[in-house]
């Protein structure tokens, strides 16, 4: 037995390269797996750290108009933004005697000072004070990482006078900062899950390919062992032993690799920000379990695989030709598409959870359907190619694929799935982004404008003057509070002078001197029909209640105007642009989903490129004798390269087309029916970058095999007799 093991492991020319390849493949797969596992665990746990920001909405919070409990901290939570980033802000007034610590900071900030997360400090430092810093007052200190979910978290804890806090909407007394974390939402979680599965798929594929590569390349040697009397059990033992050793080394290396790659992987933003590297650490017990599972799986898989390969003393007995793919393979794709279509078209009548499962499930079935239909499509396409081929390269490639459509497609399946996923996300994101366009809609706040309240007690004239003085501000339009008793408008409505309506974004001017309109619709992304304008008698109009600030549209001007308003009128003024009103949250989620999709696509594409290269090289080595003879007969090397190119291109082009089309249609159906009558346009530019990257990788992988082809088919390398 020892002799057999030595022979199987050490003998032969390529014997060192192969186990090395397996070790590296397993290590890479293991590292990716551990990082993804770490991310999934971290996603769940890290949001607990910022849960304290939700304390003001907990049921334990006491409204500020009630009596103050002893030691309670008066707090209000809002959001402000600068340079397009949203900043969470907790405004507090803590009594001196309070024993309640605020998470992440040593003591409550005195009025007029603030604590900031490191990311916010960086943003404050980057922007001029009149764009951001002046809104918070003087810097008191840093919020500790223990109170932040991510290094990217933008949080400020601002100190204010008790009266000022009490005047803010949603102000409460807090006796505890215990709160539950923000709910991710089932859809988001399911999409993350799909992304994770999309990432696991190529990793599994990679591990499968490298272990298979190990067994297949040695079938001849094992046949020799069988010939000199080794039993199938002994062969299986030798193979399993080798897999055990390589998988153990590879998995252990993978754990190290994961630790090394952690800081790099932590940069990737997911659900609101990048990770602290230690967040991605997987508990030692989990790592050990993963290593064990990997070793057992690899060992069993190779032992079973080699027995199934049926090595007789005369070599492998596998049939070269695969079974012809049948047309039933279209079915899953149709089922998935049908499910999505049905769910989307009946969106109005279906319960939300059911709809989520319909869409996500349909998406998963379509993805699986593409994998299932791939070999059939490849087979059909190869038939067309081999029938129509005008060159020897195309003829040979087409015929080869026709005999092994499943294996051929397998080598590009990762790429195809990645492209499908990216297409769906990019197209859907592009469509939704389009629906969030805020320019040129009659009866809405112009894109360059801020709408702010002027709370009672604020010095309206001073605020207006200060705002007008900001560079880039073109006009300040004042809305006036309406006496609710004298009119029939909603309490708190603001009336605007008729002559200001064009500047407010309305095409038509009302006939009354003053008119009011619905604030929510005014801030909406799209107007269906014209916004209803209600005339108000001049007698009912009072003091300044709100302003609309028209700027030159630059981020600098908007930030500075906002700072001026907040400094003058306090955070309660809550200046907002229509972009912010519409996109708050949605854009972030879309962006992250796109990141997940592109990341998944990149990993899938990279791995698919590797497997494509391996499969291409293996296909050449399999036929090196006959290809060598063809070269001897005078077939130019360029024709051989073209042949290899065809063998990779046929499944790629055929099914990639399907992926893009299916992805585009799925996204179209989802967006059109869920977001209401929006046509999806061009996907984001990143999409084309990802596609180009995928194709370059695939081409590079195939080009990398050219050396193998040359070596293996060189006239001098072929034994011809």
């Amino acid at each position, binding site marked *: 037995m020892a002799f057999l093991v030595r022979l199987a492991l050490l003998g032969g020319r390529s014997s060192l390269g192969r186990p090395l390849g397996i070790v590296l493949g397993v290590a890479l797969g293991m590292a990716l797996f551990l990082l993804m596992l770490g991310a999934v665990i971290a996603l769940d746990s890290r949001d607990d750290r910022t849960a304290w920001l939700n304390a003001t909405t907990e049921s334990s919070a006491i409204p500020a108009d009630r009596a103050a409990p002893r030691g309670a901290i008066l707090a209000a939570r809002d959001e402000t933004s600068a340079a397009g980033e949203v900043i969470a802000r907790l405004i507090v007034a803590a009594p001196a005697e309070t024993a309640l610590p605020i998470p992440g900071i040593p003591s409550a900030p005195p009025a007029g000072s603030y604590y900031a997360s490191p990311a916010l400090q960086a943003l404050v430092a980057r922007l001029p004070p009149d764009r951001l810093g002046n809104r918070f007052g003087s810097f008191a200190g840093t919020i500790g990482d223990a109170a932040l979910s991510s290094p990217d978290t933008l949080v400020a804890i601002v100190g204010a006078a008790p009266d000022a806090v009490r005047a803010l909407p949603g102000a409460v007394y807090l006796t505890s900062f215990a709160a539950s974390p923000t709910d991710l939402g089932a859809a988001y979680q399911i999409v993350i899950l799909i992304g994770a599965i999309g990432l696991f798929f190529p990793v599994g594929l990679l591990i499968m390919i490298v272990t298979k590569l190990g067994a297949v390349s040695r079938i001849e040697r094992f046949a020799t062992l069988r010939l000199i009397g080794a039993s199938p059990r002994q062969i299986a033992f030798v193979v399993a032993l080798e897999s055990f050793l390589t998988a153990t080394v590879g998995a252990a290396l993978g754990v190290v690799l994961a630790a090394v790659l952690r800081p790099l992987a932590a940069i990737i933003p997911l659900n609101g920000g990048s990770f602290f590297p230690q967040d991605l650490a997987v508990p030692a017990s989990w790592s050990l379990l993963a290593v064990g599972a990997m070793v057992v799986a690899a060992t069993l898989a190779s032992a079973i695989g080699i027995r199934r390969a049926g090595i007789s003393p005369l070599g492998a007995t596998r049939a*070269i030709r695969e079974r012809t793919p049948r047309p039933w393979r279209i079915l899953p794709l149709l089922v998935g598409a049908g499910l999505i279509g049905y769910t989307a078209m009946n969106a109005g009548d279906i319960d939300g959870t059911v709809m989520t499962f319909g869409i996500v499930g349909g998406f998963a079935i379509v993805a699986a359907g593409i994998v299932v239909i791939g070999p059939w499509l490849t087979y059909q396409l190869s038939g067309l190619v*081999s029938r*129509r*081929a*005008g*060159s*020897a390269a195309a*003829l*040979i490639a087409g*015929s*080869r694929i*026709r*005999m092994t459509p499943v294996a051929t497609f397998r080598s590009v399946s990762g790429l195809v799935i990645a492209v499908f996923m990216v297409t769906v996300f990019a197209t859907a994101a592009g469509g939704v982004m389009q629906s969030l366009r805020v320019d040129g809609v009659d009866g809405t706040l112009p894109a360059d404008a801020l709408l702010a309240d002027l709370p009672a007690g604020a010095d309206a004239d001073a605020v207006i003057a200060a705002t007008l003085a900001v560079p880039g501000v073109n006009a300040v339009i004042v809305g006036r509070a309406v006496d609710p008793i004298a009119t029939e408008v909603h309490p708190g409505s603001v009336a605007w002078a008729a002559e200001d309506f064009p500047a407010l974004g309305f095409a038509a001017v009302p006939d009354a001197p003053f008119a009011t309109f619905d604030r929510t619709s005014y801030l909406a992304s799209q107007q269906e029909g014209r916004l209803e304008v209600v005339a108000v008698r001049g007698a009912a109009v009072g003091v300044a209640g709100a302003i609309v600030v028209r700027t030159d549209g630059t981020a600098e001007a908007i930030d500075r105007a906002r700072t001026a308003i907040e400094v003058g009128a306090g955070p309660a003024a809550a200046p907002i642009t229509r972009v912010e009103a519409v996109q708050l949250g949605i854009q972030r989620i879309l962006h992250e989903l796109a990141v997940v999709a592109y990341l998944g696509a990149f990993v899938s594409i990279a791995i698919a490129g590797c497997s494509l290269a391996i499969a291409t090289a293996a296909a050449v080595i399999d*036929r090196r*004798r*006959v290809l060598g*003879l*063809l*070269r*001897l*007969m*005078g*077939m*130019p090397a360029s*024709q051989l390269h073209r042949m290899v190119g065809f063998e990779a291109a046929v499944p790629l082009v055929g099914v990639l087309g399907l992926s893009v089309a299916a992805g585009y249609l799925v996204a179209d159906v989802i967006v059109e029916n869920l977001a209401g009558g929006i046509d999806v346009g061009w996907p984001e530019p990143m999409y084309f970058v990802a596609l180009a990257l995928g194709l370059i990788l695939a081409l590079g992988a195939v080009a990398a095999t050219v050396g193998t082809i040359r070596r293996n088919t060189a*006239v*001098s390398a072929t034994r*011809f*007799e």
Partner: protein
Amino acid sequence: MTAVLEARGLKKSFGRNEALRGIDVSIRRGEIVAIMGPSGSGKSTLLHCLAGVTVPDAGIVRFNGTAISTLDETARGRLRLGDFGFVFQFGQLLPELTAIDNVAVPLLLAGERRAAASARAAEWLVRLGLDGKAQRRPQELSGGEAQRVAIARALVTKPAVLFADEPTGSLDSLAAEGVMKLMIELVRESGTTVVVVTHDSRTAAYADRDIIVRDGRVSVALGEAA
């Protein structure tokens, strides 16, 4: 009669192994010549030098008066594709191609259109008694049938010289006889020159004469002109 192939002073070594130690050969147009000799005598190396597959260390090979041993690989490849045909012992057919496609490959390589190539390939299959086997793949053919497909492939481009390296080496006597008989008939008909390497005297008996290679040299026992 002019010499279609001529070699003078051929020498070729592989490491320390001197495969050819100075060989002179002249082959006339339309002649069928068998190269015989014990294993390792250098007969296959001689064939490879004559066919422009291997470049000799010393000496010269002329085809129709042109020195081919000094051409580069691309030019020799073109020569092999256009003017030479090859038949080997076994495993020379592409397993994924049907018999007719295998025969059509050299024509496609030469730039012929698919339809014309298929038509000519079909013609040659009939000549080799393979009608009805056109859509079979190599693994669905017997050894003799596969060799006949290989011969069709070698002759379909109407080569000036057919090189055959142990063409009957993996066949039983009966199949070998069928293959040789057909091959000889077809080359006699077209006037193709044949160089066949074999250690089987019954295969060699189909030739017009034999050249014995022993220890890298042509055995010169006979008064016959080499």
